[in-house]
């Protein structure tokens, strides 16, 4: 942003990252159509966190909203990254899976609903372990079933990113939209450092982390479909566009191509992030 015009544009841009989960859903849905299901006043809280001395949030950190996208019925499931790292527990997982399963039922009855996932999550909530993992498996199954009827669109905007079992959910979606601030990966940097040592990965090296698993790198190496600025209007426009774009083969069905990619890597001498873009960028 070296020019005054660039600075003006930057300041005028409505940030998506700065919005909370509920505001993000409103930003994606057509103006005035937001209607929340199973909201905070229904008090579907985690029964497990208070038993472990952790304060529970009234909506368990997931906002499910019905509304319209481009005038068509839609459902947006948005994870609140500031609450427990956006982790998926029994209740929040049931809300995510339930929203997708109801969208699937509507699609099967010939009433397609446009499903959107706003993912900001470290993955399973460790305090709820297996219950959260089971819910994430239901989310995976629902995405795979639903994407046969209607594109399933995911946005990873940042700053938490999307990790663990929920990174698999992001990868299963028909279209994945990321920002430069997003991170996407199976294991988060702290987990890798803890398990494999500082020599493997320095989790405090932010520049390295983003070069490895940041939105720009994931887009350049074909793991995300759209790279967009942190602009609520631009992100909403990309979500709308995802439902009119020509259908593509889901990434999870491109097994041969992905195996062929692995064959280009020498695990003993792993490539630098920039080299990986050259190696995988076009395949």
């Amino acid at each position, binding site marked *: 942003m070296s020019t005054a015009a660039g600075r003006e544009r930057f300041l005028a841009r409505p940030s998506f990252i700065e919005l909370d989960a509920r505001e993000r859903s409103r930003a994606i849905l057509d103006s005035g159509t937001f209607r929340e299901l199973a909201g905070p006043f229904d008090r579907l809280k985690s029964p497990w966190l208070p038993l472990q001395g*952790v*304060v529970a*949030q009234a909506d368990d*950190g997931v906002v499910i909203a019905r509304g319209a996208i481009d005038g068509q019925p839609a459902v947006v499931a948005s994870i609140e990254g500031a*609450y427990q790292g956006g982790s998926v527990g029994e209740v929040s997982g049931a809300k995510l899976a339930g929203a997708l399963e109801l969208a699937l039922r509507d699609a099967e009855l010939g009433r397609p609903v446009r499903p959107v996932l706003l993912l900001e999550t470290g993955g399973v909530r460790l305090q709820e372990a297996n219950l959260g993992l089971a819910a994430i498996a239901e989310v995976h199954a629902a995405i795979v079933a639903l994407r046969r009827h209607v594109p399933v669109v995911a946005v990873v905007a940042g700053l938490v990113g999307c990790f663990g079992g929920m990174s698999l959910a992001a990868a299963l979606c028909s279209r994945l939209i990321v920002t430069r601030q997003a991170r996407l990966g199976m294991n988060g940097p702290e987990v890798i450092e803890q398990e494999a040592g500082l020599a493997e990965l320095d989790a405090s090296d932010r520049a390295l982390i983003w070069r490895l698993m940041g939105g720009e790198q994931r887009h350049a190496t074909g793991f995300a479909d759209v790279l967009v600025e942190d602009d609520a209007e631009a992100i909403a426009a990309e979500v709308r566009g995802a439902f009119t774009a020509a259908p593509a083969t889901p990434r999870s069905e491109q097994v041969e191509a992905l195996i062929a990619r692995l064959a280009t890597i020498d695990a003993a001498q792993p490539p630098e992030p920039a080299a990986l873009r050259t190696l995988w960028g076009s395949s």
Partner: protein
Amino acid sequence: MERLSFTYPAREPVARRVHVGVVGSGDLEVLLEPSSDEDAHVAVTTSVDGFGTVWKHVLDRFFARFGGAAAIEINDFGATPGVVLLRLEQAAEALRA
């Protein structure tokens, strides 16, 4: 984790419900809805033990001006008194909007 409850006399009914905030680090959520009687009731769940007196001071100050017969649930994750008061004022403002 500690649970605290407070009751304050109210001057006027509350017509709707309002939700603000997040149970994030240094933050809290406030659920405000009409009370079932003529008083205002506050139920606090906080991650930090031993600050009951501070909570009472903050709520005394809020209810010195706010007169709604509200049932308020607060889920707190280590917010400072200033942040608590700001979130309560935000809820009161959303009620008027």
